[in-house]
């Protein structure tokens, strides 16, 4: 990354980097890092634009509900998460959260 990411971005990277292979969905990720959707989604968009985040759509959504968008870090994203995580180990509260 060209410049130091914000504390909120670090929190998202750290949360995603804790379970690098697992797909996560936005609402629960926001709850985990303590960010509202209005802050979380722009961060996810920027991470996606920079190639640090990959996304897919839920394949086993129950009937009557549209599939959700799922996210996980790319290899570059995992490296970025590893770089920033030690510098700010307490960037955000991390209650136990799970993936979709």
């Amino acid at each position, binding site marked *: 990354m060209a410049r130091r990411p914000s504390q909120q971005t670090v929190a998202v990277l750290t949360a995603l980097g804790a379970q690098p292979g697992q797909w996560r969905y936005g*609402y629960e990720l926001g709850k985990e890092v303590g960010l509202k*959707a209005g802050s979380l*989604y*722009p961060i996810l*968009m920027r991470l996606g634009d920079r190639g640090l985040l990959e996304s897919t759509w839920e394949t086993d959504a129950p009937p009557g509900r*549209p599939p959700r*968008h799922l996210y996980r870090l790319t290899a570059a994203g995992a490296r970025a998460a590893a770089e920033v995580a030690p510098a700010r180990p307490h960037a955000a509260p991390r209650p136990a959260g799970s993936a979709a």
Partner: protein
Amino acid sequence: MSPDRLLSWAVRQLPPRREEWGRAMQAELAALQPGAERWRFALSCTRAALTQPATAKWLPAALVVVGAVVLAAGIPVVSVRLEAFAMLVALAAVAWQARRMGPVADGRIARLVSAGSLALVAVAALVFVAGIRRSVPASASAQILVWTAMLSTYLVAATSLTARRTAVCGRALATGAAIGALAAAAWFAVVLLQPSLPTSNGPALLAIAVAAVAAGVQSRIAGLCAAASTALLIAVLIDGPLRLMSPWVATSAPPVYPPDMPYRLVDSIGVWLLGCLFAAALNLVLLRPARARLSRALAG
């Protein structure tokens, strides 16, 4: 209003490249149980959608509306003031309806042409209302009616020309806009060297014709786009910068011809009307396939 409808509206404001993120927000909302949390989530997502750099175009539009309302509120004649307000409401309604054609097409050219043409229409509306406020002409009612129709036609043309749904190819758009801008710039440059030129519509008509033919070689849409944009730019130049420059005086004010100011600008309404005709032709060409599809769908 429900959280789903609010978010659905906000998501429609997103640029095409962010559509997937809009659907992601909607899917998350659909997974939430009814209650305050759904509203909080929808409001927060709405904020995210509307503050995206490419979405925040509503801010200049809001400033234009506020500016126009403030200008119209200062019109001294009550009946004309009310007609000016009606004009602004009509233009806002047309702009709102035109948005139903969908988001601006992908690509920098479409976004640039859309923003530029809408800005020109906004400037024209503000200049017109400011002129009425400064001096209410006897024909104010008729002028307001004509300008409402002209600016509405331009609004629809600007939106349909750059909407993704009408699928005007980027090359035609770029050719039309670039040749239109070049023709207007050439007219302006010549006018600065020869100040007697804008005292007649002739040179402006020539510039419009040359632009239409030059771009028309590429395609009919490019030709119409070039003609409409040349006329729009020249008309705005006559009504705006030239009136403020010392060698020229406006057609309507001061009422007495000052002998020390030899160059009296031509009334730009001819150029406006001609440009409007080209814009209307553009609308016919662009919207006919959409109407035909709708008719076929209704018949089938």
